[in-house]
């Protein structure tokens, strides 16, 4: 934090100080006005905050409430649940979807690499993720954030994701960040209900129906890779991606955490992730770490790869390199 403040102070000379002050409403009645205002705001905020809960309780069916953890579901349970979820998608979104149960393939361990010399920050990966993974259209959600970084640092606090100017800028490099599927994932350790876990191919998954929305995992992730569904995603029927997986891109319910899953509904069927296919610079490389002939193995053997925040011991499966 001290580092960040240091940078902030150097920036504040050029930008105006943030306007944190409350509006002053006359000297005589300030205290009462503020008290009244506070009470009104509090009640209003409570009503707004409580509304989704009431709404959610109405929406939850008995079957959903009684549903057990993914790992103890039988095949019959799964097919029943998937059918229910498909019907829900039909009712709520008007879309025909197929929810599959893609399992890890034996002998496969996924790795991902990004060539930061090629990435120019154009953001096509974020857009592809947004569409592939049925993200909320109103917020433009995506599992990926591309940071525009000053050269010479890996400190994400110095990065900026809001740039809109033509890219690349010569004095910057561009750092796409998403879930790294860490080999020692802190998010999994902190989950109080075991709603998130790591599978054999390295992908850290979430049972969205088991997640209680406590957001401990979000706090634990050093890469800010997890997102919270503050509301149910809004997606027009014709934009819903019907190729879905229970643990991956099915439309998430409100109040649960989500994150990148290396497009497991695609990659466990041998396909490449959507963000890789969308990258116009060819910066992304994906493959099986256990296959000595794979592209990802060649990159690891021939490029000087690094991971973010290596000192934390999370052992990410997302590798960066410069040419």
């Amino acid at each position, binding site marked *: 934090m001290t580092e960040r403040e240091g940078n902030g102070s150097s920036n504040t000379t050029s930008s105006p100080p943030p306007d944190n002050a409350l509006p002053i409403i006359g000297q005589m009645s300030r205290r009462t006005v503020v008290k009244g205002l506070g009470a009104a705001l509090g009640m209003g905020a409570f009503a707004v905050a409580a509304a989704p809960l009431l709404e959610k309780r109405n929406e939850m069916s008995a079957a959903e409430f009684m549903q057990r953890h993914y790992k103890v579901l039988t095949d019959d349970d799964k097919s029943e649940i998937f059918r229910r979820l498909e019907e829900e998608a039909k009712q709520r979104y008007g879309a025909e979807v197929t929810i599959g149960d893609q399992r890890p393939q034996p002998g496969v361990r996924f790795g991902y690499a990004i060539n930061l010399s090629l990435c120019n920050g154009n953001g096509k990966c974020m857009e592809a993720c947004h569409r592939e993974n049925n993200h909320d259209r109103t917020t433009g959600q995506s599992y990926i954030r591309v940071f525009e970084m000053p050269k010479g640092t890996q400190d994400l606090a110095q990065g900026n994701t809001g*740039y809109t100017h033509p890219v690349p800028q010569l004095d910057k490099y561009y750092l796409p960040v998403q879930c790294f599927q860490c080999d020692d994932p802190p998010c999994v350790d902190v989950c109080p209900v075991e709603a998130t876990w790591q599978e054999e191919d390295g992908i850290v998954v979430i049972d969205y129906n088991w997640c209680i929305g406590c957001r401990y995992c979000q706090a634990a992730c050093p890469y800010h890779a997890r997102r919270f569904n503050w509301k149910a995603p809004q997606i027009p029927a014709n934009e819903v991606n019907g190729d879905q997986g229970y643990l991956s891109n099915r439309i998430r319910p409100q109040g649960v955490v989500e994150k990148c899953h290396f497009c497991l509904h695609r990659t466990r069927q041998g396909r490449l992730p959507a963000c890789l296919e969308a990258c116009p610079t060819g910066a992304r490389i994906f493959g099986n770490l256990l296959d000595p002939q794979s592209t990802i193995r060649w990159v690891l053997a021939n490029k000087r790869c690094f991971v973010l925040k290596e000192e934390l011991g999370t052992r990410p499966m997302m590798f960066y390199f410069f040419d």
Partner: protein
Amino acid sequence: MNRAPFGRSVVSAMCGIGTLSIAMLCGCDTNVGQRASATRGMSLLEIAQKNHELSTNYDERWVAPIGRGGRVAAGIVGADGAEITVSCGSCHGNFSPDASRRSADGLKEFHQGLHYQHGGGQPLSCLTCHHAENYNRLRLADGTPVEFSESHMVCAQCHSKQYRDYEHGAHGGAIGYWDRSRGDLTRKTCVDCHDPHAPAFPLMRPTFKPLDRFLNDGHSTRAGAEHD
């Protein structure tokens, strides 16, 4: 030799009424493909300018500046609605090559407006890559003819590191299956992304931004504040 040694007949054909018949004689066909639709009705100069506008949507950027695969668009549309193309050699066969030419500047008839920036301070001659005796082919430095479909072999002579990475799957991206036992993998080739006459990757404008709570809400002193 300083006059533009290029296809007078095709240029007049593009402007005139006898276009179709002349283009047919030159051996037209329709293999420019779907990219032609984006440039239909545009002059060659407009097409060249379009190629070098700041790209906002990569997919719509028409990469190859004039021709593709040894054929050029004649600027007209056939009866079946497809762009008519002419092989390079059909015009170049009538003119002697100019080995000293290193840009399109001063050309009076064809390839006008071609943005050429390849080779840094000492631009390459057209005939570094194009085959002087057969304009339907490219050439290697030792004179070996190379089909346009094998153009990456020409690029690889200088850009060996990129070619090595490409051969190992680490350059150029891919679409399809990482597991080749379950499906095909489609690779791009050099000129799908790099305009061979101006190969530097163009500037792009980011078109998609997640609306984060911490962006553009006045709380952050950094995000988006210093730019735009």
